[in-house]
Structure formats: C-alpha cells, structure tokens
C-alpha cells in the first residue's frame, strides 16, 4: 500500500550521483538529473562483482595478468588491459593463455606498454613492455568502465565519476547522456504524466458515466430481485441459484458474454435480423458507436454485479423482524408507509454497505471494457493502470492510476457515510 504510494510519487531513478573518484566508496561530488547531456572527460576500469556483470548496459573491459620480460629484461608479473594485449593462443575452453603486446599506432605515441600491479591504471607501474613482446596470460579480470563526466545540474556545472551502466555514450565517444539515475527523489512527474496522458480524461469520463448509470440500475434491480426472493415462491431455491450465478462470474467472462451478444454476427443482430427488424447487421462495438459500447458495458456490469447487491439487500430484509412489520400494520401504516417509514430505514445500513462496496468495485472494472472495446475506444481508469503497467511498462504511472482509484474510492465512501450521518443528525 505504502509502496504503491511511493511508486506513484517517488522516482527512484531521478538523479545520478557523481562520485569524486572512480570508486563506489568515494564520496558523492554532485548529482545530475536523469537524461541530462554530459561530456566525457575520462574513463577508467574498475572491478565489479560477478553478479553485477549480469545487469544490462554495462560497458566492460578485460584485463590480463601477464608475465613477460620488460624493456630492461626483467621478468615482470602484473596487469595490462585487453586493449594492449592481442591474444594469440587459447586453451580448449577459450581461456587465453598467450598473447603479444600490441603496437601503438600514431607517430608520437608512447611505444611502450605499462604493466600495473593491480587491474587498475592508478596502481603502481611494475614495468614497461615493448610492442610485440610475447606474454604469458595467467589470469583475467573483467572491469566496468567508469567515466569522468561533466554537465549541468540545476544551473550549476557539475563533474564527477559514474559507472558506465548509468550512462549512454554517443558515437563521438566524448559526449553522452545520463541514461538512468541511482538516487531517488519525490516527484509529481508520474502524476503529471498520468494526467497528461491522452487516455486519462476519457478514462475518468467513462468511469464516471458508467458509475452513474450502473449503480442506480443495479440498486433498483437488486431490490426487486430481493423482494422476489423474499416472496418465497414455489421454486425459490432454484430462482436463488439462477440469481446467484453472476456472482461467481469474472468480469472477463462477462465481457466476452456480452461481446458475443453485441458483436457484428452475435445474438443481438441475429435476433433482430431473424425477426426482421434490421436488414444488415449493425456494428455496435466500433469506434463510431461509442455510446453503444457504453450501453454494452452497462448491461454487462448490471448483469454481473447486481447479484451481490441483491444478496446484501436480502440479508438486510431477513434481519427485519416480522413482528416489527406487523406492528407497523396494526398501527395503521399502509403498504407504502410501511416501505417508507419502516422497511427502507431499517434497510439503510445494508444499502449503505452495498453502495460503498459497489462503488469501490465499479472503479475496478476493466476486463469487461477490454473485452467489449479492446480497451481503446472506451477506456476506464483500471484499464489505464493495466495498460501503463502491461503494455507501456511504466510501473510508476500505473501506480499513480492505482492511487487515483484508491483516492476516488475512499472519497466516495466518505461522502456516502457523511450523507447518512447528516440524515441521522437531521432526524435528531
């Protein structure tokens, strides 16, 4: 729950920490925002743990531990980058065992290659090798490249080291951008993204319209169904079974059910054509018939979720004692007065619970919408949350949608409760 909120308003990749040295333990020099442009001032390899190598976007270089005679003829043992050694011989499993020192190109280049005590250019130089010297490769180490970068953050020039995995280098190898951050920050970015999404307002609108038409219909139908059940007809148990079936049907199945009815060669068109009401099948569920899609969703939801309201109303009715109703009758109340002054007031807590429950559940409708409209022509908030997460892989915006739904649910619940309380206060 809290994490959902955090996802919605906290960007844990907002900034990249630039370190004073190319070392994970080095202090942070500056922050730079995600996707800022940067200049590459230098690079250096650094040992990384095995498991981090698995992560994507890592720019790596390999260093070899070599043994070879140096310019002075001494046998040296140390590390050199793969950019300096050409592998000449490999073991059967691909492990390099022998190589030669590369020639440096260019006229003014240093012809010698340094060998370091550690796989790190900052470590002590243990010797210098001539080009083409044959070297025995003893060991190898994979390093992640770190970059010394400079850029601008909140108007300030910033500079520091960062691992390659956070940085995208352009082709010129001297400029790039911050690919992702590693330091979080509270942000309204995702909420803004949600609100500015082109599906946001249509989703809000459809959700509101659907609630406005679904819930009242459901309550009227549910009370009628409850009264039918309470009438204790001959096949009451069977009727109850039928009434209860939709209670256990998923919104996806219901969506498909009503899709089968409204689709071009579905039940509705077949029926209308067979009775001669239409000549050619009409398209109910296309982008041009938005309102019919709403009608289909409305019917599907009423079909599916009225049963639960009915069950709550019936248990509310069952809780009203028979003697209370008889007392109302004896004391002069006619049918309408009994309903108005006794039954409905006694049913109010049940209706209230049903109302809150239904509203909360109505915000979650989404598979019906996907089944009936493909999720584009008519969309609802829950569907947008699903789309952001599933199709656009945008977890934070999906969480923002989810939180928007939660806030709406709580808000309406409070309004219902408040409305009822006010009524009681007025009565007092």
């Amino acid at each position, binding site marked *: 729950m809290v994490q959902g909120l955090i996802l919605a308003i906290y960007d844990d990749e907002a900034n990249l920490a630039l370190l004073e040295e190319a070392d994970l333990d080095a202090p942070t020099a500056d922050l730079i925002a995600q996707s800022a442009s940067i200049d590459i001032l230098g690079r250096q390899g650094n040992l990384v743990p095995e498991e981090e190598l698995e992560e994507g976007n890592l720019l790596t270089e390999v260093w070899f531990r070599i043994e070879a005679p140096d310019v002075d003829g001494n046998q040296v043992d140390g590390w050199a980058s793969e950019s300096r050694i050409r592998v000449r011989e490999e073991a059967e499993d691909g492990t390099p065992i022998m190589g030669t020192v590369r020639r440096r190109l260019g006229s003014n280049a240093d012809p010698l290659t340094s060998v370091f005590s550690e796989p790190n250019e900052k470590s002590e130089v243990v010797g210098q090798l001539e080009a083409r010297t044959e070297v025995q490769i003893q060991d190898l180490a994979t390093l992640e490249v770190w970059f010394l970068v400079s850029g601008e953050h909140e108007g300030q020039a910033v500079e520091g080291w960062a691992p390659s995995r956070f940085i995208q280098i352009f082709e010129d190898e001297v400029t790039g951008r911050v690919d992702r951050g590693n330091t979080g920050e509270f942000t309204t970015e995702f909420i803004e993204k949600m609100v500015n999404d082109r599906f946001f307002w249509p989703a809000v609108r459809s959700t509101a319209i659907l609630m406005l038409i679904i819930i009242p219909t459901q309550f009227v139908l549910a009370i009628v169904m409850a009264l039918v059940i309470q009438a204790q007809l001959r096949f009451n148990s069977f009727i109850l079974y039928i009434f209860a079936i939709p209670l*256990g049907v998923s919104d996806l*199945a219901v969506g498909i059910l009503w899709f089968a009815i409204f689709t071009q*060669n579905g039940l509705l068109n077949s029926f209308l054509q067979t009775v001669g009401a239409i000549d050619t099948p009409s398209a109910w569920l296309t982008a041009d018939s938005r309102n019919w899609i709403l009608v289909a969703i409305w019917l599907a939801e009423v079909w599916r979720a009225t049963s639960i309201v009915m069950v709550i109303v019936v248990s509310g009715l069952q809780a009203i004692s028979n003697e209370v109703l008889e007392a109302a009758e004896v004391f002069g109340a006619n049918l309408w007065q009994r309903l108005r002054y006794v039954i409905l007031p006694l049913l109010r807590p049940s209706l209230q619970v*049903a109302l809150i429950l239904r509203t909360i559940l109505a915000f979650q409708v989404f598979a019906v919408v996907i089944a009936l409209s493909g999720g584009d022509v008519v969309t609802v908030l829950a569907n947008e949350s*699903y789309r952001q997460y599933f199709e656009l892989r945008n977890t934070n915006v999906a969480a923002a949608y*989810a939180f928007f739904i939660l806030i709406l649910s709580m808000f309406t619940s409070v309004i219902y409760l408040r409305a009822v309380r006010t009524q009681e206060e007025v009565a007092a």
Partner: protein
Amino acid sequence: MTTIDPNTPQVSPEVLAVHKKAIRQQKIRRGLTYALAGVICLWIIVPIFFIFSMAFTTQETVRSYPKGFLPFIPFSTETMTFFLNSDGIVPGLINSVLVAVITLVLSTLIAAPAGYAISRYIFPGRNFFRLSILAVRAFPIVVLSIPLAVMFIQLGFFDSIYSLSLMHTALALPTTVLVIGSVFASIPYELEEAAQVFGCTPFQAFRHVVLPLVLPGIAASGLFTFVMSWNEVFAASILTIQNRTLPAQVLFALSNSSEAYQFAGGFFLLIPSLLFMFFIRNYLFNMWGQVSK
C-alpha cells in the same frame, strides 16, 4: 354497520367484498412476482445459454450470420476443442487450478482460527480487528497489485503461481475470516463446554463437536474462495508473464483471437460459477449478511 343474526353468523357483504378484492389483489401480485422472477431468470440465463451454444458448436456456425433462434444451433465439441488446444490454455488451466487450490487451502488455514477467535473470544481490539479486515476488502485489487508486482520482482518471486496465490489469499482473507467467523458464531459455545464437561479436551471438543457442524459452512466459503481466485484477472495479469492463469491467458490473447476462441473461453471461465453457486447459494446470505454488519 351491519347487524348480525346470532344464529347463523354471516360475514357482511361489504366486508366479504373487501376480502375478495384483497385475495384477488394478492393473487395478481403473486402472479406478477412469478412473472418478474421468470423475466429476471431469463435475463440471466439467455446470455449464458447463448455463449454455451457458441462454445459447443462448429466454428463455421460461430462465424455464420444470422444464427437464427438458439436451440437449432448444431451441437459439436469443435469450438471447445479448438479453444482447449490453443496455445497456453492447458498450462493456464493447470495454473489456475493450482493457484485457486493453494489460495483456498491457505486462506482457510489462516481464516479458520481467525474466524474462530472472532466468534468465540472477546479480546481487546476485536472490533478494530474486524474493521481492519473489512478495510483490506475495500482496497482495490488494482491498488494492491502494482506495488506487489514490484515487490515480488525485487524479491525474485515474480511470475510464479505461488506469489499469485499469496496475492489471492490476501484478497480472499477478509471475506473468508468474516464468513467462517459467522459460521462459528452460529454454533453455541455451550456445545463445546458440554463436550468438555463430558471429558473432551478443548481440542477434542472442537474436533468432534464443532468441526462436523461447521464443515459445510467452511466448505461453502472455500468454494467461494476458489471461484474468486479462478475469476481474478487483474492481479493475475500483472503478476505473471510465463506462468499465466487461464483468465490472464485469455485476456492476453483476446485481441488476437478468433470469436470461436473467445466464446469457448468465455463459457469455460464461467463453468465453476455454474457448478459451485448451486452448492453455496444458501450460504450467500450468511456470508454477505455478516460482511454488511
């Protein structure tokens, strides 16, 4: 005012007329109620029957138009067979059943003691406990799913039927606890005490006296949990990729599939409801009556 002959008492004609009218009205009302019940039943059954007939017919019929009146559609298992042989359906079915069974077992194991405690013991914070259970019920699946997905990814627990079962258990628990609590509450505590007086340990009293009485109610609640888990789409779609449950698989394939696939899938998904609602219909009021208190 009517005078009455004391020897042969007769109801006055006016009152008799009132009575006859009342009886007539009652008959009409009853007839109307039957008609209403019939209409509502049709409203529920017709779509189900239609998708049933679509699921058990030839693919050609599914494509044909107009289809004519319902009962004349040729019966065939072709569509259903096609659906069941489609990609990911059988694994999805297995996953769905596994998730639902794990959810059922987990939530019953947790909810039974919790429900027993709520119904039997008055402990500090009991009402708060009840309320917080309901509060969880009120949190939308949507709100819970996404952070959980992120959490499961971080824990390396993502895309597994076990994590989905955990999620479904969390969703089912509030209702299960309250329902099982109400089932226990309907068994007087005196019964247990009597058993203890006659030499049972508290556990034996529970095992031999209470358990047989509550078993049907717990079974009903279990079936309800099963159906809930079987139906759940959102969390299933968010929390799984490779190991999709049946509804998640159907939803995923929905936009790229033929109508035959969709209709057969739609009917297949509502089979558990058709079966289980029959057994639990009499417990429904118990369940939701409790929840709405």
